[in-house]
């Protein structure tokens, strides 16, 4: 694999100012630092810091893999840079452009400097290109990782948000389920509901599935598990909000919901719960 020669490195060093100004110009042309996501002063600082680390690491070997301790600082810098970009709402190509836009200024300087030796020129251009590609790839990889972290955090937050256990009446809890039920969600729902039953000493828990779009065998199985767990704790479960389509699906699938008390809506379920706990609600005359 072609390696950078000392002559090329010296060439880059000696034309530092030209390369930097050209790079800045290029970045400005692509619109970076123009909007309010990142200020041009900040971009300039990042650019200089990157350039410093780049020059530092340049004489090191293994440029094609970016392995080795010399490349550590610049790898770190790119990781934090792309994490920062991801959070500010830049997309992956905009982030990668930061690295790739350095290509043209570097190429033109190398080209001018080595014009007398075509063989060496081609060789060195390939080496520079490879190095910048590696740096760019590393940036994109880090960017992707940050985005994935963001997505995962949001998923976890959604899981928490979508399972509120509300106290409906003295001794009656309700759990309005919204969205598709999968194993992971059932687990979270079950745990929080059972814990609330213990905390409040409620005798009846109503699981409202009005917001569950479809019921299949798996969902039914999850529901059965939850109901059984509630019974084991010594409380009763009522399932409410069974819509006509869902009732049809359940029957067509031949699912056995025996032992589960179901009601058409939450009001009916609450009425049943009140009756079971020996409470009545009466209308005040007048």
């Amino acid at each position, binding site marked *: 694999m072609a390696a950078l020669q000392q002559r090329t490195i010296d060439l880059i060093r000696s034309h530092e100012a030209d390369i930097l100004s050209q790079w800045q110009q290029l970045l400005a042309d692509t619109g970076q630092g123009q909007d309010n996501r990142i200020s041009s002063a900040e971009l300039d600082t990042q650019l200089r810091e990157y350039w410093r680390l780049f020059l530092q690491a340049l004489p090191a070997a293994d440029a094609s893999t970016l392995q080795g301790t010399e490349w550590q600082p610049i790898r770190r810098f790119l990781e934090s840079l792309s994490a920062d970009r991801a959070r500010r709402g830049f997309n992956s190509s905009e982030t990668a452009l930061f690295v790739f836009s350095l290509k043209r200024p570097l190429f033109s300087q190398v080209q001018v400097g080595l014009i007398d030796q075509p063989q060496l020129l081609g060789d060195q251009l390939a080496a520079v290109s490879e190095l910048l590609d590696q740096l760019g790839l590393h940036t994109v990889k880090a960017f992707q990782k940050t985005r994935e972290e963001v997505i995962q955090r949001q998923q976890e937050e959604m899981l928490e948000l979508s399972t509120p256990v509300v106290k409906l009446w003295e001794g009656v809890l309700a759990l309005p389920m919204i969205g598709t039920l999968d194993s992971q969600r059932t687990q979270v729902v079950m745990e929080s509901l059972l814990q609330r039953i213990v905390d409040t000493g409620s005798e009846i828990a109503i699981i409202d599935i009005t917001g569950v779009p479809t019921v299949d065998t798996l969902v039914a199985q999850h529901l059965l*598990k939850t109901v059984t*767990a509630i019974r084991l704790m010594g409380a009763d479960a009522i399932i409410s909000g069974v819509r006509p389509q869902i009732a049809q699906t359940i029957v067509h699938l031949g699912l056995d919901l025996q032992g589960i008390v179901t009601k058409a809506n939450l009001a009916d379920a609450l009425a049943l719960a009140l009756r*079971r706990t020996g409470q009545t609600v009466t209308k005040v005359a007048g």
Partner: protein
Amino acid sequence: MDRIPILQMGDLLLVTIQVDMHDQLALTLQDDLTDKIQRTSARGVLIDISALDIVDSFIGRMISTISALAQIMDATTVVVGMQPAVAITLVELGLDLRGVRTALNVERGMKLLQTPAGTP
């Protein structure tokens, strides 16, 4: 050898499990309990497992078995105070303890035992 004490309250028997159950202890409890039911002709058995936070399939089956044994000897069993983690474990193990009556705490369990079976 340690055993789990069985307390008598009128015609009810009270079992409080406060130590980690191991298999031999569970078997001893089964023997002791059936013995005691016969001697006292108890009408109901209340098993408090609120201090139990780890179960395995053996203990789960033991609860089922005790309930069935007591049923045959004409005593009603109520299991009270099951922890959420225990309930989830039993469900995941596929043990739904059908036929075992449950209550949230000792007080409610007592009330359940004092009303004859079949009436809510």
